[in-house]
């Protein structure tokens, strides 16, 4: 209901703007209804959304949630929304053949980015589906002998939820704790492997704190014990060098919309030698070798392939730029503010991610104050709840600091001017909130907040 209301107000605002600007011949009815709308700010041309006045599209610093589609990717996709609409599984006519060729080309583009063979790539609807197939599929297939899964506490929700589902079916799951820098302890991993361990699942780059796990070392341990190794590489693909043989992964989940590709498409890498087998989650026409039935979305698959090819060409260039921007952002904020803590390891970190906690500031007020910067406190999936992120809690970040975390995501299209603007606005907002905060005043006076005995009420 609420979303409906928001949608309708938004639509009204939008139509009003176009009316003002272009004399759109749309409808006089909406224009008449809009005369009673006091929220539009005509002097700036801005709109009011969710009670926040917005004068322009905010600058986007949330590329870990999703990335904009690269124009080169869209250029590859568009023909498949126009005349090349064939079903890639149609074997009897030209339409099918051309779509099939495009899908197979995309498959090889994805495979070459991760150093795999095209035969090892299965297209899915996204990394969540790939994770589900990997975890539930492997354990269901080998359920006679294998009853135990190892994962970490900082995994993505879909991995944790798949594991919870397996627990309800009677499987045993070990959730490995992480160090305060977000990395898994390899000795703890080694110790928790049992004879009936069927899968180890560790994500390559964390979505919230950007920490890069020691994939090669984990792969070696898994090889030593002959346990299949699954990794969620949605945040790693196209950003750090991903090599399935170096990492010794048996399964890997990939996503299209984190690498400037379209939403709604992902891929699963399934090793052929030694072969890993999974029980399909979706049954049907037997597409994708029966592992993921259902007609492939040709335009999306083509888009993912194109995004992988662009990522391969641009990785070096992007990384150089993004790491300079990360330094600019961090230095800019640190120069003007004290009490800023980087969550997660700074050395083993993907440069496009900067998760910061601001002491003595309340997180939600900070996020709402930063309405001209599109950032998030953590993962987009949990951004609706006010609870602090479970990832930060797993790192042992204290409750008050976990509440004030902001994840800045820097991407291919971020500019220096945007970073400078974000620094300016963040500093301004934090200073404003700290000025109001009695806690910060006490700290300035030299009182240690941890020593205060709060009277009960």
């Amino acid at each position, binding site marked *: 209901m609420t979303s409906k209301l928001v949608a309708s107000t938004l639509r009204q605002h*939008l139509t009003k*703007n*176009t009316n003002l*600007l272009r004399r759109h011949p749309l409808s006089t009815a909406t224009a008449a209804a809009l005369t009673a709308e006091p929220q539009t700010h005509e002097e*700036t*041309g*801005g*709109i009011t959304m969710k009670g926040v006045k*917005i*004068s*322009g*599209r*905010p*600058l*986007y610093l949330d590329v870990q949630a999703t990335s*904009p589609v690269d*124009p*080169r990717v*869209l*250029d590859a996709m*568009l023909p498949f929304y126009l005349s090349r609409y064939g079903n890639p599984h149609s074997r009897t006519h030209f339409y099918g053949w051309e779509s099939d060729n495009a899908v197979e080309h995309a498959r090889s583009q994805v495979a070459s980015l991760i150093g795999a063979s095209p035969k090892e790539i299965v297209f899915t609807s996204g990394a969540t589906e790939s994770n589900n197939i990997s975890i539930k599929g492997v354990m269901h297939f080998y359920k006679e002998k294998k009853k135990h899964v190892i994962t970490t506490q900082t995994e993505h929700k879909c991995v944790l939820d798949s594991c919870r589902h397996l627990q309800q079916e009677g499987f045993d799951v070990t959730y490995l704790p992480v160090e305060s820098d977000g990395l898994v302890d390899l000795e703890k991993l080694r110790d928790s492997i049992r004879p009936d361990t069927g899968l180890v699942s560790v994500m390559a780059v964390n979505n919230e704190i950007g920490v890069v796990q020691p994939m090669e070392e984990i792969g070696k341990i898994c090889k030593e014990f002959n346990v299949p190794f699954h990794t969620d590489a949605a945040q790693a693909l196209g950003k750090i060098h991903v090599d399935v043989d170096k990492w010794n992964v048996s399964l890997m989940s990939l996503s299209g919309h984190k690498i400037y590709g379209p939403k709604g498409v992902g891929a699963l890498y399934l090793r052929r030698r030694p072969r890993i087998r999974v029980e399909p989650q979706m049954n049907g026409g037997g597409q994708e070798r029966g592992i993921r039935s259902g007609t492939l979305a040709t335009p999306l698959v083509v888009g993912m392939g194109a995004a992988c090819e662009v990522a391969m060409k641009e990785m070096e*260039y992007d990384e150089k730029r993004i790491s300079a921007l990360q330094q600019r952002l961090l230095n800019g904020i640190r120069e003007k503010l004290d009490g800023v803590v980087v969550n997660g390891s700074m050395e083993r970190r993907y440069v496009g991610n900067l998760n910061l906690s601001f002491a003595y500031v309340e997180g939600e007020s900070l996020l709402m104050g930063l309405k*001209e910067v599109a950032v998030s406190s953590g993962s987009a999936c949990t951004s609706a709840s006010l609870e602090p992120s479970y990832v930060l809690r797993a790192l042992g970040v204290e409750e008050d600091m976990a509440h004030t975390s902001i994840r800045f995501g820097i991407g*291919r*299209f*971020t*500019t220096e*001017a*945007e970073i400078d*603007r974000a620094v*300016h606005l963040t500093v301004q907002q934090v200073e404003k909130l700290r000025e109001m905060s009695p806690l910060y005043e006490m700290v300035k006076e030299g009182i240690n907040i941890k020593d205060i005995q709060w009277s009960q009420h």
Partner: protein
Amino acid sequence: MAATLTSSPSAAEILSLFRSFIRIARQFPDYNIREYTKRRAVDAFRQNATLSNPSSISDAFSYGKSQLEVAKRQAVVYSLYVPPLPSIMDLPNKPF
């Protein structure tokens, strides 16, 4: 056809390609894409300025030409769907 592929482009041709990129970049209504197209073209031409091998020069030139075609098409697509609210970076009165 074969002759045009093997002979390396003249300095004037390269300069004209570069100018076309800058011109087409300006046509993107989206702030980030506009800036990226400009920046990427400048950086690519600067990086390729050190090329001396004629075949790699003509490779880079034909790659640039194909990328320019992509940019031309996408500038049209982007200008068809301009969001009603401009980017905050494109607003005239910036707070600082």
